[in-house]
């Protein structure tokens, strides 16, 4: 490699990495994903990536509510959202760094399948995404099997994460089970000593990636490389937060 080539390469590197901040948008109160005290697993993975890029990690704390892509990445408030679905078309995404599923969460009475003969009688909690006519995949699956009367919806909007409220309800006996997005519930289920069983089949599975602005290909490529290099560390963090995979 000629000297000239090397200097160009260094310049290129410094433009995207050395001299920049990595600005991440995150929810200030949405454990186990993120929290303003940086205690969520997405906070931990973002730190890892920033270190790997040699960039200073800066947060823009924004609730992940309606229009969040437009108001954050779109408005130039930040460069990345951790943990978006890999085929989420509103952003450009990295390769997935994990794949998870909706899971059954239960206490004494096991529930591991939609074919459970007691399905209709069990009191089951699900998350409600809050969009007219939309439901989580378990919401649709329960309705299709006629499990309606004992299903309880937990709106995503509320004082605590919906997954946490579902776990609390199972722990205190007002629900028998929940069917919840795994990464959201594994952490709370483990702390409450509840069991978790994967609903590992389509359409309950989603691959999760980092989202950047649609035109930020270079940052996306740099993040992809960083994710590949730190794969074992990412895995360790996901284990620590009981993210089912």
């Amino acid at each position, binding site marked *: 490699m000629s000297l000239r080539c090397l200097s160009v390469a260094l310049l290129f590197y410094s433009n995207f990495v050395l001299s920049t901040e990595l600005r991440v948008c995150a*929810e200030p109160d*949405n454990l186990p*994903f*993120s929290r303003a005290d940086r205690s969520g697993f997405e906070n931990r993975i973002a730190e890892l990536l920033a270190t790997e890029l040699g960039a200073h990690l800066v947060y823009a704390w*924004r*609730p*992940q*509510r*309606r*229009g*969040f892509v*437009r*108001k954050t990445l*779109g408005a130039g408030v930040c460069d990345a959202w951790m*943990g*978006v*679905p890999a*085929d*989420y*078309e*509103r952003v450009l995404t990295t390769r997935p760094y994990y794949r998870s599923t909706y899971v059954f969460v239960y206490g004494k009475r096991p529930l591991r399948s939609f074919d459970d003969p007691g399905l209709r009688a069990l009191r089951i909690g699900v*998350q*409600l*995404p*809050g*969009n*007219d*006519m*939309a*439901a*989580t*995949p378990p*919401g*649709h699956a*329960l*309705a*299709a099997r006629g499990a*309606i*009367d*004992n*299903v*309880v*919806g937990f*709106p*995503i*909007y*509320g*004082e605590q*994460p*919906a997954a946490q409220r579902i776990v609390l309800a199972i722990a205190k006996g007002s629900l028998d089970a929940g069917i919840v*997005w795994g*990464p*959201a519930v594994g952490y709370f289920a483990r702390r409450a000593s509840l069991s978790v069983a994967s609903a590992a089949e389509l*359409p309950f599975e*989603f691959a*999760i990636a980092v989202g950047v602005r649609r035109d930020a290909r270079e940052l996306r490529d740099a993040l992809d490389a960083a994710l590949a290099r730190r794969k074992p560390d990412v895995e360790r963090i996901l284990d620590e937060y009981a993210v089912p995979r």
Partner: protein
Amino acid sequence: MKLAAIAIAAAPLLCAGADEGEWRMPAGDYAATRYSALADITAANVRQLKEAWSFTTGVQAGHEAAPLVAGGLIYVVTPYPNYVYALDMAGRVRWKFDPKATASAQGVACCDVVNRGAFYDAGRLFFNTLDGQAIALDAKSGRELWRTKLANIALGETVTMAPLVVKGKVLVGNSGGELGVRGWLVALDAKSGKQLWKAYSTGPDKDVLIGPAFKPFYSSDRGADLGVKSWPPQAWQIGGGTVWGWISYDAQRKLIYYGTGNPGPWNPEQRPGDNKWTAGLFARDPDTGQARWFYQFSPHDLHDYDGINENVLVDLSLDGKPRRVLLRPERNGYVYVLDRASGEVLSATPYVHITTSTGVDLKSGRPQYNPQTEPKAGRAIRDVCPASPGAKDWQPSAYSPRTGLLYIPHQNLCQDEETYQVSYIAGTPYVGADVVMKPGPGGHRGEFSAWDPIAAKKRWSVAENFPVWSGALVTAGDIVFYGTMDGYFKALDAKSGEVLWSYRASSGIIGQPITYRGTDGKQYVAVLSGVGGWAGAIVSNELDPRDGTAALGFANAMKDLPKYTVKGGMLHVFALP
């Protein structure tokens, strides 16, 4: 010359003591007619109408409000941050009030951060903020008299409606049905802001304020605790039925009339039952809040057909008999004529192309749903008409007792619900319906129709390129006014529908036109421009036109709007030279 001068001088005297020259509430009157007895502007002179002055609000979101005129001042409430301006008759700022509404309310509101106006009563101005506060101001000085926090934005609740003040009570309802909010209407003491009663739209009768006086016309609305029993257990607790539209008041019968939003936030398969008391219409006693009757336009709503549109109270001669009726151009595509004492449906006639139902059975009062357009998980359905915003959304119609016509600003939209796409909120991926809206038959997206409620017929209509998302106004000069999303403010002959005059504003018009007599004795017409709202969010929120599913699928039908208009709020005031 002398005779003419006398006639002009006499005109204001005729209305002395009345508030005819003022505009104190968004609908103009309690009957919600949006009719003005002012008749200086006529077909003979409307072509000379000129902008007298304008005022920039400094706010970029969609301006759906009606300006108000009372006591020699003009009042404007803006979308979030919900500034209130008091202007003098020349458009100079007398005072400005900033309620300091919580910024995070913006991320909660579904369809832009709109506000539909204030209410003037007895020297006080009442309005609501997006973050759920009702506020009373001294109308002369802008001094705050009280404020009451009503909605909880942490739960997804916001307030976008204009309050109605009647018999010393301020009536306010909530928005946010798709987020698991339970709908309600509250009455506050106009003097103190203290809550007097609260009527929920779902749940047990005691919460809904259903008691012995409740006498609905149809048997499907009779029975104990239907607000619980017409849902799966507990689902009513987050069942929607929010109250974000219009309230009318019949002073003679002493009843208020208002509609409830769609049921939510579940997919329809997961909430079997009529889902009472959503997507329907309540008549209540404003003193106690007790319900008198209820009628459900869309039992077990399948298409997001909120039932919150305006209720226009008029007296008609039907089959030779005088009837006190309520006119309701409904989101589901029918113009309803209801007996406003009993809640009986006298007629329900389509005013747009409808595929979601085949008619309304007058015996049971129920719409006959078309199973072909019923949404089912995993099934693609095409040509759902009207689309989710309905044949008509919140934008209020006007009724002229002179022509006997109801002037309806509305949409001509259908939608396909094709595949399912990955959606994502607060760390949770899920499947969403991929809703794509498109123009209905004829290819135009909006229409302005003159409807004869006695003959149940469209007398004339004007096709518009974009949905007509503004309110209507009609005057005793037989002129009807409305605005378009591409920025035209139009005056039409109320009898023939001929367009007589138009004015091009820099931003699209989704506000409610009004008219008033100035302190100089002249008739003025005023309207806010400032495109936005659910229909115009593509411009006001700078949505990506490549993402057709943005704004819950509305962006697809509005891709070209940014080529016609830019955002920004402005009050325009017009007069004859």
